[in-house]
């Protein structure tokens, strides 16, 4: 049989449910039979109840929305702009939203590619006039002119006079050859 002093050392842990089963049982049996230790147990319970009641009554006065606004204000005021931007990106491009990004991108690319067949010459503009320049195998320049309205394509081959002057003694041909 444990003495009262030893039991009182354990009452707190017994109330907290932190004792092993045999010890818990011995404390319970002692409390049932000892008025003094039973009173000590009640005192501890009263203290806990009063503290919880007091704090709970206070906490219930705290409304969520004003509290949340205070938290938001701190976040807005004390987060650097680049972190706020990152937060926005994280919030906006969540995994579920990113899933839509792939088909949306494919659709956009296909739309751009097929635009040519629906709107001929959209890439060249309304007065569509495009030219491509390059140097062919014989060192001549090639100009490609396309006119959408008349649907005519002109290929223009000519030699670079400045280039000729640098490399050859002969005078360059001035007129382009069609």
């Amino acid at each position: 049989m444990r003495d009262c002093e030893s039991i009182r050392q354990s009452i707190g842990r017994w109330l907290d449910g932190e004792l092993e089963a045999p010890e818990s049982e011995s404390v319970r049996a002692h409390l049932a039979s000892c008025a003094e230790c039973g009173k000590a147990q009640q005192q501890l319970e009263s203290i806990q109840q009063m503290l919880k009641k007091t704090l709970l009554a206070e906490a219930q006065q705290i409304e969520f929305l004003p509290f949340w606004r205070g938290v938001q204000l701190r976040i807005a005021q004390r987060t650097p702009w680049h972190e706020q931007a990152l937060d926005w990106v994280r919030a906006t491009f969540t995994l579920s939203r990113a899933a839509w990004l792939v088909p949306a991108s494919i659709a956009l690319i296909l739309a751009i590619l097929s635009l040519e067949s629906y709107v001929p010459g959209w890439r060249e503009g309304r007065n569509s006039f495009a030219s491509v320049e390059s140097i062919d195998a014989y060192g001549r320049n090639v100009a490609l002119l396309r006119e959408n309205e008349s649907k005519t394509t002109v290929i223009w081959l000519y030699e670079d006079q400045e280039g000729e002057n640098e490399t050859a003694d002969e005078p360059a041909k001035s007129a382009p050859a069609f």
Partner: protein
Amino acid sequence: MASFQELVSRYHQKVYMVILGLLHNRDDALEVAQETFFRAYRKIGSFEGGSSFYTWIYRIAVNLAIDAQRRQKRNPLDFRETMDGVLEAQEETARDPFADVHDRELRENLIRAINELTPEHKAVIVLRTIEGLSYKDIGDILGCSEGTVMSRLHYARKKLQDKLSAFL
């Protein structure tokens, strides 16, 4: 942000209770509670799923509250005085007026007795009382062993019991 708001709505009162239990001043407690959630927002990336969210948030709250307590300049009696109004309003339908007087006396002395404890002893008693947390969880929050939690709790309860025995 919406999920964070949900977390705040779930825990703000409990976090506030813990901090108020340590600081005994409404304004300070409110400020520290909001700061707790701000820090949690900033550090949410470092939160490891290994521990529970409440253990993590209470750890931030207790650390901030203990720091604040060391810097606290305001009058802690502010808490006790305004507290009475709250409880009176709650107990309007109250029972025996003598019981009310007794309760008020007990409450005032309880707050005074708790305020005389060290921050570490206050923390264990408040965490255990409010959440009924296990010694292991309290140890995780305060960064100490279960044995330390047990001995601090025993000491704190003994102190409170000695000071309040006349009212119990």
